[in-house]
């Protein structure tokens, strides 16, 4: 045992040497991250305490004025509220739709499996294309959605899909759900493939019915996939800019303005970089909370 020790120590030392050398390999990536992520964040925090506007070359420190203005800014609170509704409803409906589709398509065999591939295509369509597609479909007059609803006798006059704040938010959420339900379909299909055959067989021997099989056997196996998928989509939807901007530009009357839209408007159409940075910092903090929740969930996930 004692004789083996020096040999082992030498191996460990060599491994450590290699590891140290390997650690240095991360330096370029860390430098890049510091430049493209770290520096802008630090700079945004600093700018949020100034009255920086792109119009004027001079700007100065104004303390917490931007943050106190934020607390009294109705557009900020409206945007925050819209962000929560847009994200929450999109993820919840997308998840349920994806789950339903995954369960319905689970038993597809042979050429019918092609159907699953077709259902995944909305996920591959560029966001901007989806946005214009749905804008044309919802537009009034002339949109196909109102036309179909009228033909089916569900409505008697066209709905103001993109011209009423409530309906506009609904229209944007529908487009978003169409785009991201396939993502949930994909992860649930993969998770369903991981349910052990013996468990399914045992349930069948016990004459479990379809609903019991889904609720008591399959859903517990899908819990982790649902959690990871939902958290990823929450982060993605929190940052969803192109879909909303292309469909409604945040209107009408701030009806679909989310935090990311508001930051863009402040920074790039009103050029108020100081105030935009303050909104951006709040937005960043919220995203960091969600991200840390995501990382903690991943770490605590059982193998």
């Amino acid at each position, binding site marked *: 045992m004692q004789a083996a020790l020096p040999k082992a120590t030498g191996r460990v030392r060599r491994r450590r040497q290699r590891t140290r050398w390997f650690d240095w390999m991360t330096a370029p990536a860390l430098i890049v991250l510091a430049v493209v992520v770290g520096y802008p964040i630090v700079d945004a925090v600093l700018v949020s305490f100034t009255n920086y506007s792109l*119009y004027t070359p001079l700007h100065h420190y104004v303390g917490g004025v931007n943050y106190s203005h934020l607390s009294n800014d109705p557009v900020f609170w409206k945007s925050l509220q819209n962000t929560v509704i847009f994200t929450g409803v999109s993820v919840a409906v997308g998840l349920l739709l994806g789950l339903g589709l995954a369960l319905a398509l689970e038993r597809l065999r042979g050429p019918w499996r092609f159907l699953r591939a077709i259902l995944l295509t909305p996920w591959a369509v560029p966001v901007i294309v989806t946005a214009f597609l749905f804008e044309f479909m919802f537009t009034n*007059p002339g949109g196909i959605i109102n036309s179909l609803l009228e033909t089916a006798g569900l409505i008697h006059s066209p709905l103001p899909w993109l011209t009423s704040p409530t309906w506009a938010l609904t229209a944007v959420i529908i487009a978003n759900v169409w785009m991201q339900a396939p993502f949930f379909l994909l992860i649930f299909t993969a998770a369903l493939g991981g349910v052990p055959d013996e468990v399914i067989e045992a349930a069948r021997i016990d004459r479990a019915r379809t609903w019991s099989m889904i609720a008591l056997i399959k859903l517990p196996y899908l819990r982790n996939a649902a959690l990871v998928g939902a958290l990823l989509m929450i982060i993605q939807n929190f940052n969803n800019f192109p879909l909303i901007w292309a469909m409604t530009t945040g209107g009408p009357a701030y009806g679909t303005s989310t935090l990311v839209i508001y930051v863009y408007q402040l920074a790039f159409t009103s050029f108020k970089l100081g105030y935009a940075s303050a909104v951006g910092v709040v937005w960043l903090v919220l995203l960091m909370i969600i991200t840390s929740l995501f990382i903690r969930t991943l770490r605590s996930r059982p193998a």
Partner: protein
Amino acid sequence: MQILGLRRKQHPVEGAPLRSAARPGSCQARRYRLVATGAVLALVSGGVAACSSGGSAGGSKNVITFANWAAAETNTAPGVAAMIKKYESLHPGITIKSEPISFTDIDQQLVGEVKAGNPPDVAELQGGYTYDLAATGGLQPLSSFATSSWQSSIIPRELGLGKISGQQVAIPWTVAPLALWYNKTVMRKAGLKPTPPATWAQLLTDAKAIHAKEPKVIVLGNDTTSREYGLDVNWPIMRSFGAVAFSGTKATANTPAMQKYLTFIRTIGKDGYTPENQKQGFFRQPAASNQVAFTIDGPYVKGVVQSLNHASNQAFYQTWAAAPLPTATGTHYSIPTDHQLVMFKNSPNKKAAWEFMNWLATSPYAVSHYTIPYEGSIPPLAHPSGTVAGLLNNPVSQVFVKQIVPEVVIPAWGASYSAAYADVMAGIQNAMISSTPIPSVASTMQTAVTGDVSG
């Protein structure tokens, strides 16, 4: 086996890879590392050199960079390309490098470029964009280039649009004030005389008749999107009611005149005469198929409509005509949607840049081959002659030159405008779609605009 001089480093065992000979820490391994580091440094420095040489090419004395949205739009891109080709053939020492940027993005992109210190030499701007760029201090005053004889050749009012804080920082390229376009065919079908309404009240009366007869026809094309351009379009309507949303750093959004304007806006929204939150461009497609009765647009709408329905000039004039925007107080207003040309202070080629700008805006060739046919706009020439005068001898151009250009007022463009437009448009949209009492809408707008313009 002497390939690339590597024979001396060949491993004693023939065919074994070179890398296997480099034991960690050995002299050979260090040499390889040194060679690899050298290669990486050479590549990086080569790349940097290539980038910097590419950058300097853009700033060399014979290259004029020209940022514009005309090259980014399907209708005008071939025309701009042809103009550049022609100019380069007339000036062999000059190369024009066109930078296509969409109309929506050009303002923020150029403001960013000025701040970063790398703006183009020349740019195409419009309305508030010129004021935004002037506020950054990045525009070159043009007084030393625009001689008094040159100035006398330009329509004085149009020349004045490029004068900001006493400095001539922009010259007019295409003249395009907003007018009321009316569709004579639709009016006749509704049993109306095909004459333009002179007042907004008259327009509402006509609208009622048209909507009753043809419910699917859009009665009034009015841009109510939350964009600076949305406010541009609504500015002359507001003014014709005697309303102004703000003046300098003072909000004036809650006045009886503004409430009258908002009531008018509510009527056209609630009675289904105007689809809310739609861009001006939205109305052009239905206009081409006689599905629009009135629309507020510039002279260029003629070209767009004709490109869509392939109508001849004669057929177009039989269907469409332009008139001053109606009024509620007796005075008619319009605003310019002119395209202007500016030069940036950083330009190393100011003289060449000016010559290019001047040629685009005033040369008979550019006016008759681009401004009129591609832009569908009026040239800024005070005394057009020859071919240009002939091209302007039509009912639409004459209305614009004689009636609408003199009515042009400049909106309160600048920092306050950029800060407040979103809240003003939110108020307008609220008036159109909500049932909130108009005084309350005006009061909310006043509070929001006060916050925007008070600094």
